[in-house]
């Protein structure tokens, strides 16, 4: 059993253990398993460490598709198809994987005061579902077989539905169903692609084999280093196999009478855009966030949203590079609209948590914009923004949660002077919100500026790149506007009597917040050492792969 | 764009056709329905002539068909107007919804 399998299924093991321990011990077990997963996942650093100039090639390979800790075994053997259990990790999945284990651990810790929640029934179920959710998330980031990916994707969906729907706020059922329906709509589109991809990869391979003759059939078509003799779900094979790729990209390959690659790209895009989320399919997010309990909001913001971005980078671009070129403008517009619209909506919110939720929409818009322009800096920035947002936004949600635990409401205008009441909490809140604001020296800045510069850098390719970059840059003013206004209304001002008795952040709360604060600062100061060294190798290779494929287009 | 082809004419005919159908669907005035029918017939005519011109030039079949369509349309119009007038005489209206005396 490889390390990845161990890591992915360790939480399941934890869930099983949770079944059998006494109720009082459940949370201890869950936290222990989440911690164990996190600590073990740190061992992956060994693989990627030292990603400087000299060792780049050894770690990331010379072309897109080099994986580490590969585990593959046939899972389902059909007459002429194979579903593999295929795990592997590269620079794209690795930081998100670590992020997931970390946030899951912190969120688990944030659930520690479960017995003081309004709905505190079913602690066992809660933690079991939580651990299952973690398995689903981890699996998504390491599965390299589309089928497996889809399975993990759905595995993650269901616990989330229950976690929101059972332990959420007053409108939890509405929010949960909304979340579920939206995500399911995306999944359905993905399913269409899943099926299509199999058939459309089968056709060229079969053709190639018949061209090769009996000999070819005997040995199978030789792709990169895997023998395949029929269609495949292998994400790497789909992206790098020249026969499949040229068939996908060909103009004559039609799907429902439309060109294959753009259609597939669009279907996947809608699926992932719902997850990201982009305007106008973002409306599930505020509801889900507002209703979900704090730890689940952390997971939702910290990890689930990243799956959209991860999906773009793992599926859309490498496999349908021509689609990216085709839809670049559309994607960029959606991204920019998300940035501005999200910021504006955030500005008008009166609910603390909703404001943070809309700020997520705005921030993820940068991810989409960076990816859409397909430049090196854009990709890097988008990836960084995902990680940075994965740190800052759970932090913000937890900050909201801490105050909600005390005040039992989230009306921004009813707060005030909290920095005086709770100085330690106030200081951490300042760090968290300034990281979200994109203050230089904190993590949010790097992603934004990289994306902006990357967008601007696409000026040669796209005439619209410059206006987009400038409008997006205007977003930073709006962001500053709503964050500062928020800080002013909640943390500054005179101390209020009704909150005077509030205790400062407890040791546990501080412990949850500190790692995120430290990471927010560290990522802002050492972007290279914290993120770029692990991601850029893969991203650059992927971009080269995409550019190659686009250039090869007739 | 600048070379006018078959598709262009067919598109015009399609619009005529749909307009005709729509007119027939939405008018309660018997004469209005008749007008819709005329539109549909005309769209058929345009189609026929266009096919004649582009698919089999010099073969005049399409044109002859169109000619028959016109003839039949004229005949139909004459009959239909007659029916309308009769309807009006009997019911003092041309609202087709009123003409439901045969309904069970």
């Amino acid at each position, binding site marked *: 059993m490889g390390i990845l399998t161990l890591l992915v299924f360790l939480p399941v093991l934890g869930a099983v253990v949770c079944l059998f321990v006494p109720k009082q011990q459940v949370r201890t077990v869950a936290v222990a398993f989440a911690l164990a997963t996190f600590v073990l996942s740190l061992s992956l650093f060994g693989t990627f460490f030292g990603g400087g100039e000299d060792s780049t090639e050894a770690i990331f390979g010379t072309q897109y598709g080099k994986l580490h800790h590969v585990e593959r075994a046939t899972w389902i053997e059909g007459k002429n198809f194979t579903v593999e259990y295929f795990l592997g990790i590269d620079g794209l999945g690795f930081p998100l994987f670590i992020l997931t284990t970390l946030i899951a651990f912190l969120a688990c810790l944030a659930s520690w005061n479960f017995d003081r929640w309004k709905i505190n029934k079913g602690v066992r179920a809660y933690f079991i579902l939580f651990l299952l959710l973690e398995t689903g998330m981890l699996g998504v980031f390491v599965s390299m077989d589309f089928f497996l990916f889809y399975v993990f994707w759905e595995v993650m969906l269901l616990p989330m539905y229950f976690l929101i729907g059972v332990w959420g706020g007053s409108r939890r059922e509405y929010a949960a169903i909304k979340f579920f329906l939206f995500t399911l709509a995306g999944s359905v589109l993905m399913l269409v692609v899943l099926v299509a991809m199999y058939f459309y990869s089968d056709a060229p391979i079969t053709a190639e084999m018949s061209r090769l003759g009996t000999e070819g059939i005997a040995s199978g078509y030789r792709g990169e280093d895997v023998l395949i003799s029929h269609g495949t779900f292998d994400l790497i094979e789909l992206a790098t196999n020249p026969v499949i790729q040229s068939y996908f990209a060909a103009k004559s390959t039609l799907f429902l009478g439309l060109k294959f690659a753009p259609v597939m790209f669009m279907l996947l895009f809608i699926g992932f855009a719902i997850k990201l989320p982009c305007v106008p399919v973002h409306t599930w997010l505020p509801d889900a966030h507002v209703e979900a309990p704090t730890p689940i909001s952390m997971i939702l913001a910290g990890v689930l949203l990243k799956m959209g971005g991860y999906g773009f980078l793992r599926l859309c671009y490498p496999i349908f590079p021509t689609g990216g070129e085709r839809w670049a403008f559309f994607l960029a517009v959606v991204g920019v609209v998300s940035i501005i619209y999200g910021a504006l909506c955030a500005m008008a919110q009166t609910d603390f948590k909703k404001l943070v939720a809309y700020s997520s929409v705005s921030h993820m818009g940068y991810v989409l914009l960076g990816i859409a322009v397909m430049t090196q800096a854009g990709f890097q920035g988008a990836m960084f923004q995902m990680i940075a947002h994965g740190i800052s936004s759970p932090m913000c949600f937890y900050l909201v949660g801490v105050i909600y635990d005390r005040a039992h409401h989230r009306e921004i205008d009813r707060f005030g002077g909290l920095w005086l009441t709770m100085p330690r909490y106030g200081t951490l809140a300042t760090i968290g919100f300034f990281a979200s604001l994109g203050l230089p020296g904190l993590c949010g800045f790097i992603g934004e500026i990289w994306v902006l510069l990357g967008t601007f850098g696409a000026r040669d390719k796209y005439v619209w790149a410059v206006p987009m970059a400038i409008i997006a840059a205007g977003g930073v*003013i*709006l962001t*500053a506007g709503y964050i500062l206004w928020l800080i002013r209304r909640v943390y*500054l001002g005179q101390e209020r009597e009704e909150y005077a008795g509030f205790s400062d952040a407890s040791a546990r709360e501080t412990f949850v917040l500190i790692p995120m604060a430290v990471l927010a600062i560290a990522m802002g100061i050492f972007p290279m050492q914290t993120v770029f060294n692990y991601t850029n190798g893969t991203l650059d290779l992927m971009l080269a792969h995409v550019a190659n494929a686009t250039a090869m287009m007739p | 764009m600048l070379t006018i082809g078959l598709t262009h004419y067919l598109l015009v005919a399609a619009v005529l056709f749909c307009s005709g159908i729509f007119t027939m669907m939405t008018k309660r005035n018997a004469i209005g329905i008749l007008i819709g029918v005329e539109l549909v017939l005309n769209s058929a005519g345009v189609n026929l002539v266009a096919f004649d011109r582009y698919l089999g030039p010099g073969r005049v079949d399409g044109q002859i068909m169109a000619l028959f369509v016109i003839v039949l349309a004229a005949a139909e119009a004459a009959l239909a107007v007659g029916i309308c007038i009769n309807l009006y005489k009997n019911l003092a209206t041309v609202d087709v919804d009123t003409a439901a005396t045969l309904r069970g």
Partner: protein
Amino acid sequence: MTTSHTYEILLALGILAPMISFWVLVLFGRYLRKPGAGWFAVLLGMGVPLVLATVVLIGWSGEDAAARAALTENAYRFHWANLGAVPVTIGVKLDSLTVAMFFMVAIVSFLIFFFSIGYMSGHSDEVDGKSLYSRFFAYLSLFGFSMLGLVVSSSLLFLFICWELVGLCSYLLIGFYFDRAYASAAGIKAFITNRVGDFGFIVGLMLVFFQLGTLDLDQAAATFAGQHAAFLADPTSAAAGIFADPFTLFGWSLATIMGIGLFCGAMGKSAQFPLHVWLPDAMAGPTPVSALIHAATMVAAGVYLVARVFRLMTPEALMFIAVIGCLTLTLMALVAIVQVDIKKCLAYSTLSQLGYMIFGMGCGAWIAALFHLTTHAFFKAMLFLCSGQVIEGCHHEQDMRKMGGLYKKMPVTCWTFFIGVLAISGAGIAGTGIGLGGFFSKDEILAVAYTRAYGWEYEKHQESAGHDSHALGAPRSKTEVRLVAFQDSDQAGHRPDQTHDGQRVEPAGNEDQVQRDRQPILEDGKEPLHAGAIRLLQHPEEHGAGTAAIFRGIPPLPKWLFWLAVFTAYVTPFYMMRAWWMTFMGKPRDEHVYKHAHEIWLMYVPLIALSVGTVFSGYLLFRPLISDGAAAATAAATVLATDGHMHTEAINAAHGWLFWGVGFAFLVGFAIAFAIYRKGLETADKIRRGAGILYVILERKYFFDEVYNFVWVKGCILVAKISRLIDTYVVDLLFDLAAFTIRRLADFSGWVLDNHGVDGVFNGVAKTSQDFAGVVRSPQTGRIRNYLLFAAAVATVVLICVLLAGWESVSSVARAAETTIP
């Protein structure tokens, strides 16, 4: 030639010290108690940098030009990150400008930190009754770190990071008394206004990064110069880069937009018109903060930025800068006249002085502007500290109308303030070489502006009229305004005067010459200058052609700019004298305030030190370093300066009528102020009533706040609310509708299946068939149009199905038809 990194290490340590101080104070500030935290910040946070800065300054002064150039050249660069494939490095930009600025910031900050201990010793550190003593010093330390980092940064990106951090400190410190609503509002206003400027900065950064391919200041400048050279050689060549770009906006080329974009950052930070609105409000912060951040250092960062990116500026961009600077300096000086709050009055004077610096930069008076920056830092910091002393002494009374006669109670403050007034008014005895810092620096800016405005005019006049007369009768023979141009970076190490002497100078007296001047290649075969380069011009004695400066391709400075600056030179002494007189002289107007007034040593020691600095800064400290820095920092651009040294005689003699006109402006201003305020406020009230609407306009600051509030703040919130409504009621509604429809469908199927499937097969079948019959019968309306509707709908559905299922077959039918139809 030395390649040791000693200086860089020392400067880096100097940045690190306040950072350490910041973290210690944040984490353990509570344990340091009240004065301890302050002393810790003073000694570690700014004492260490000051010592290091002094060491560096002394060491640097000992290096000769070649060694300095080598040190600049070989400075270490830390590979910070990759932006795309471009490495982003950070490091210490080691040159004379950095050394001078670093020292200036360190010494002013040190004195103000010191002052803060005194200021905070009372109850000034309390916010809503809780002491935030260590937090205040933590912020100050963070500010020290970011400001020093900004000064030494070698990369535009890192400069931008520090830039934002000083903005953050400004925000935090303005809103330090965050229990007061107006203070936190002022903080937000400052931050957001700065962000608006930074928006332009980011656009500039994007252009620099994309067009010049780097964010390193030196590399960017070199590339820029190279591209311009290529452009002059062949306007269409690929190497011309940014200059060859056909893009224009409002008639500005891309290169100009880049310059203006970068300048937008400076407009925000240096509070230039129309982004000046935040600075007066920023006075809500503690007074040492106003002195340090909003007078001496941070607001000057904008000027510093322009100085740093001067090599990336085109003539058009410089013209833009000059106009903005000039508007600021005039408009804000006028507002200062009517202010009654002592800090607001100083704030508007700061705005005006910053306008002077920016105006100087725009004119090409690089040296003079920075010189003014350093002198201004001293005297304005001192003035603010004095006002802090007054405010603290008078129990937080800031209204000057309630003061008066304080000279008895606080003599040290009174007279140091007076020195500041003299300095800001540009007091000096013309012709003798005796004067305060402001005297030299301001006059130099005016001298350059004069040259830009009238030197050119003279040239043009001569061209057209063909004779040698000056429209304004300036004593031409005495004009010694030197035009110092640095041509190439390989000459960067030269002293200004050497460069000057080494220049080939030629007369430009006729049409052909002017024509030739516009040709890309200069006669002596040197590399052509960048667009802002001047043709170095004739010296009257040598060539008999008068003084003129031609910036290549740039029109002369509009004369009104110069005249506005001169006019303001008269306004400044007036309002400063007014402030001083109202505060310290005359009779006490408020018994309560007067009774409490006192001063303490912790606060006036720094005042004395700063006043010493004010008196001597003009002579000793910075001018030589800045002139030296000019060589490197403006290698490819243009610098106009009076003689590279501080020969007051030369300056005064050079200015001729200008000196008679402006040299004693301070006396005129003083006299008017004295005349009006000598006997209290009655005269002023009379004048105010007489002024009517004019007074209202000034008093309301030209209604900028009202307009901005209405247009931007209210507008933005309105748009935000609309967005929220759309989000809640439109976007969501669509999805809710879809969900509702599906649910109804589900209900329907549930109804049919549950009630009629579960109730029993027979019953169910019977009922279902009945229902079915009903369902089937219901469309049988007997109306033709309904039948038609169904028919068409079915046809359409079938058509769509055919399309989706097997379009291939449909088109193959067509293809088959092709074969059958001859």
